[in-house]
């Protein structure tokens, strides 16, 4: 397996006020390798989203260590932020409704590269829009409200990958999208992975069909604990624990 870009050991996380705090992650260990797609699956409330947010430093861990390329994320949060992209569940929520698509996609580029010319930024925006199968001529000047859910999600993905992140976190990116549009989003992810072979993709999902299509490895979470981790074939075709079998059975209904 290739280099580990993100490593978490013994991650604990609590929610709620001190007196009534509730543990949502129990000593979770996780490795994310460069170039792989790691899917985090589990039922609602299993801690999938919390784990990935803690891993990237969007929320602080209450215990354990997380390192990005060998350096603790608390010591170099800026570098991880700069080299990672976020895709959220609600496509319309992740794009400013009063900004044109081009401006939204260009935002990380303008923040990270203030020295870049307007043309250079514009070229990169066109490039990533093509990568997610949105015609730059037609879509760059659109506002989010003029797009369908699938188109808006692909624009949000384009924004997240605009500055070539080393890690892309996609939190249930297809759960708010209709089935037909999911295929195009999956194709977009595949194209992005081909274009950026070193980029690690962490995908939170409860859709095992999507996970089978895109993931290299799967981590199964249940009530904040890791049930099992393995390659996609290992976990989906020969699950080792009952909870995973239950998930697979539920998905086939």
């Amino acid at each position, binding site marked *: 397996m290739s280099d580990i870009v993100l490593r978490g050991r013994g991650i604990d996380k609590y929610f709620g006020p001190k007196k009534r705090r509730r543990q949502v992650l129990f000593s979770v260990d996780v490795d994310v390798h460069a170039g792989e797609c790691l899917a985090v699956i589990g039922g609602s409330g299993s801690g999938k989203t919390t784990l990935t947010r803690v891993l990237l430093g*969007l929320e602080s861990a209450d215990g354990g260590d997380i390192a990005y390329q060998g350096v603790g994320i608390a010591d170099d949060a*800026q570098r991880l*932020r*700069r080299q*990672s992209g*976020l895709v*959220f569940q*609600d496509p319309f*929520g*992740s*794009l*400013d*409704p*009063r*900004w044109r698509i081009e401006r*939204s996609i260009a*935002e*990380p580029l303008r*923040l*990270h590269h203030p020295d870049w010319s307007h043309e250079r930024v514009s070229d990169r925006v066109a490039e990533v829009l093509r990568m997610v199968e949105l015609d730059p001529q037609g879509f760059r*000047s*659109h*506002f989010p*409200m*003029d797009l369908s859910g699938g188109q808006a999600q692909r624009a949000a993905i384009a*924004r*997240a990958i605009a*500055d070539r992140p080393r890690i892309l976190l996609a939190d249930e990116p297809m759960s708010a999208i209709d089935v037909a549009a999911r295929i195009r989003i999956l194709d977009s992810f595949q194209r992005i992975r081909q274009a950026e072979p070193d980029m690690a993709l962490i995908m939170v999902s409860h859709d095992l069909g999507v996970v089978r299509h895109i993931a290299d490895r799967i981590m199964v979470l249940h009530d904040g604990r890791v049930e099992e981790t393995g390659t996609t074939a290992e976990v989906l075709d020969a699950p080792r624990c009952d909870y995973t079998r239950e998930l697979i059975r539920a998905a086939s209904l």
Partner: protein
Amino acid sequence: MNGRIRTLRIVARSMWRRASGRYALVVMGLWLLVSAVSLVWTPYSLLATDGFDTWGSPSSSHLLGTDGVGADVLSWLMAGSRTNLVIAVLTVVVAAAFGLLLVAAMVSCNSAFSSASVVVVDALISIPTVLVALILSVPFGASAAVIVAACGFAYGLNLARILRPSALLAARSAYVESAIWSGASPIRVFFTHIMPNTLPVLSVQLSMSAGTSLLAEAGLTYLGVGVGSGVPSWGHSLTTSVRFISIYPLAVVWPGLVVTLVVIALNLFGDTLRDAIDPLTNPALREAA
């Protein structure tokens, strides 16, 4: 820059298409024009009085008649438009700065502070603007600055209270989280994401604040804590003639009419600006590439 000019033209054209927008733009344009003209010319000097021609009816020499000392009502109203313009503009600036500062503090601090700030703002709003003006006039005397400070304070609090929900909605959105994640500073996030998403409410509130400041000017001047006695303003013209309303009603009608027309224009301006400036409600803005 060209893009901004084009946007401004689209906004102005969209406002002009509506009758209420046309009315607002014409009245406000006239207000600006009259204020500018009054800097260099008024039909009569403000000091020109005629003891033999007091409370005169409109005539060819005095288009709106004369007041109790025989001064030309039109000249005083023209000069007053300048004072009222300055008061309205400064009130909007102070209210916007104060209100937005409060909103920025409310959305950037933790939820406990945010909730506490709502209570404090609600408590402060309950203090009447007149009382604030009266307190301020004790050390500073009656002046336009007192009106601006009192109105700016009161309308700024009101603005913060009304903007807070939409600002919080934007501040907690995924696009703001993405912007912060990308390294945008809190100030940049506030001015590029949060404030623009409150613009529809902001434009209506600020234009209403401008209109209400004119009404406040009239009221405070009547109470003796507004503009000084020698300073022309619409409130001053009303104050000097209101006692004689039953005998010389026209002397009150003119300044009252001007205030009413301008306040209506300001309110309609806010409404039409809200619809014209927002790409979500104005398709012309979305279509302009």
